[in-house]
């Protein structure tokens, strides 16, 4: 297996003292970085060509959003009836999904995207190029390489990317037609007369003792006189 001496960029937050091994077990996407060694030095030397119109959002910067859009374009390639990811405003939706995660998870997601984009991530599948510089077939190879990797953290990385873009894409009502989903029931169906609500007692609650005095209960509590219909108490003990 792959082993490198270089220390990966740490994503530990203040207060965390874990050393490298703890880190391996801890940060899930951090672990992907570890497996890849010092990929970050590589990354700095090469630049993603940002897609026009993309800008930094809450979690991802324009380059990372470019990568995610490229991933989405392969997860959801051109297919009759399916809107293009860009047309459902995938970058904004992906960012909104990621923004809901814990701050430390957001950091890991950013690192994952950058790592996936890097040629270094591609070393495993022998195509040391930026993901966004590859043609579709090569991009699919890289995705499949991570999906089927013998290294579990790579599969974790693939899963995170796929979940992120699939949630963002299929969460959009603009995709419903493509999958034959009519959308949630509206209007008439919901306006139908409300079914009876579960029985709730009409009488006011019994006065509460000022100090708690336990009702006489054993393993099978005897019922206090106050128990009324709707508590279900009558049927049991």
């Amino acid at each position: 297996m792959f082993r490198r001496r270089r220390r990966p960029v740490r994503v530990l937050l203040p207060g965390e003292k874990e050393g490298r091994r703890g880190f391996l077990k801890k940060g899930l996407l951090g672990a992907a970085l570890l497996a890849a060694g010092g990929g970050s030095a590589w990354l700095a030397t090469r630049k993603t060509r940002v897609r026009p119109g993309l800008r930094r959002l809450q979690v991802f910067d324009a380059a990372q959003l470019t990568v995610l859009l490229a991933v989405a374009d392969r997860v959801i390639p051109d297919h009759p009836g399916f809107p293009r990811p860009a047309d459902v405003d995938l970058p904004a939706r992906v960012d909104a999904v990621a923004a809901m995660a814990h701050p430390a998870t957001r950091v890991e997601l950013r690192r994952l995207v950058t790592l996936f984009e890097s040629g270094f991530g591609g070393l495993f599948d022998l195509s040391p190029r930026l993901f966004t510089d590859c043609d579709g077939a090569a991009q699919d190879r890289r995705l499949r390489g991570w999906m089927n990797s013998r290294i579990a953290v790579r599969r974790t990385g693939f899963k995170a990317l796929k979940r992120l873009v699939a949630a963002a894409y299929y969460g959009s009502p603009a995709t419903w037609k493509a999958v034959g989903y009519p959308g949630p029931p509206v209007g008439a169906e919901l306006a139908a007369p409300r079914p009876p609500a579960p029985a709730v007692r009409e009488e006011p609650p019994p006065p509460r003792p000022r100090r708690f005095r336990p009702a006489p209960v054993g393993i099978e509590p005897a019922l206090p006189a106050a128990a009324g219909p709707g508590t279900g108490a009558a049927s049991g003990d």
Partner: protein
Amino acid sequence: MAIEAPAGSGRILTGAEVRRDVEERPDVCVVGSGAGGAVAAARLAELGAQVVVLEEGPWHRPSDSTLREEDAYPRLYQERGQRATADLAIAILQGRAVGGSTTVNWTTSFRTPDRVLAHWARVHGVEGLTPEVLAPHFAAVEERLSIHEQPADEVNANNQALWDGAGALGWQRARTRRNVQGCANLGYCGMGCPIGARTSMDQSYLPDAVLRGARVYADARATRLEYKDRRGVAIHAEVLDPATGRPTGRKLVVRPRAVVLAGGAINTPALLLRSRLDISGRVGKRTFLHPVTAVTGLYRKAIEPWSGAPQSVTCHQFADRGPGKVGFFVETAPLHPMLAGMSLGGFGEAHEELASRLPNLSALIALTIDGFLPEERGGEVTVDGDGRVRVAYEVGDAVWEALREGSKAMARIHLAAGAEAAFSSHEETVEMRGEADVARLDRAPWERLRVELFSAHAMGGCAMGRDPDRSVVDSRLKMHGMDNIWVVDGSVFPTSLGVNPQLTIFGLARWAAGQIAPQIR
């Protein structure tokens, strides 16, 4: 400065209504308003106790439901719908709302199987929890929640496939009982029933508790349980903004005589760990998930798996597979676009092709019954330095074997029910068009992150039992070594359950409340 909340009639308060720091001094503080917390709160209030309930999730009214996945999961689920094991191998669905998971669950209601109670007694030293002791509590809950069998003519096509397929194979099958009243079979249980027809806790036991004077704080997250010697003395909570879910800066402190922890599996252990209350080192251990895999069937006829009551048929043919084996049971899962898009295997053309057939897809799920073999330890919940809850769960060989055999059984059910093809949940999906193809599942990779797994049944982490060195709470659900702290939720199971858990938790909670009441002092 903290003000003491005025005594007064019960109600549900949201985070928006708590504008200053508040201190409460009730008889009982219940943390969590789900299956365990709500029933315990209602019963304790009924027995005369003054109750305060803290719930970190929002108070979601039926009319709030937009019935869109993109709104529902972030609003009503733990970690905004993104909870999973640390390696992302198992997605974990758990509710986070007034009513807990019962506000989003699929309404299937089973009493605890006798053999499970017997196993807990024999292997885990659980004392006094017999079918006879629980029966009256089940009966009371079933009446209150109107739990009844789904009528045959209200079984949707997705569940009908399970009924037909299991029937054709001569396997055990049954219609499930559901906790609904006036259900219109809309199929959106998982997004919050829009008409309040499910008798979830927010529609039943919480109103009961409120009528008896209980105060329920929504948007109130317990962050720490303060204890001194053998007593829990205070629960510290932060108030969240209902619109954003972020802390408003307001604090809530509850100083009760008795503490009932009911945050559910994963969160109750996490609260104890954050509070550094883990006497025997067992908190968070033995966390079980009923790890689930799906097999999707493609039918010529319309299934519309989003429509109709999500679960109404169950097959327990393989629940008990003999010594040394992990059993499983087969049910169905509703499919809506987002969940389908995330969980169908692979990516690209084939993935889209299958997604585009959504109206003709039926999803069967096999739930594996983990935790009954001597070697099974289950998962472990820990809390990271950065505050994240971490669930580590390694799927053992016996569970993998059950997932594989479960997938075969599901493929056979689909094919027997007339499906054109059945698809395993592998990333490199196994497509099966006939019995000959089913054997290909033997050669498929049964390894984490090569096959999609999920769980909607987190259990354990505060196991009950006699031995304080091996369990967290005793058979009366009181924490070992503490005088006034009880755990009343799914985390007390020493194993998984073999059936959907809610009714077991309701029954246990109603029973436990009777144990707790006389000990409040």
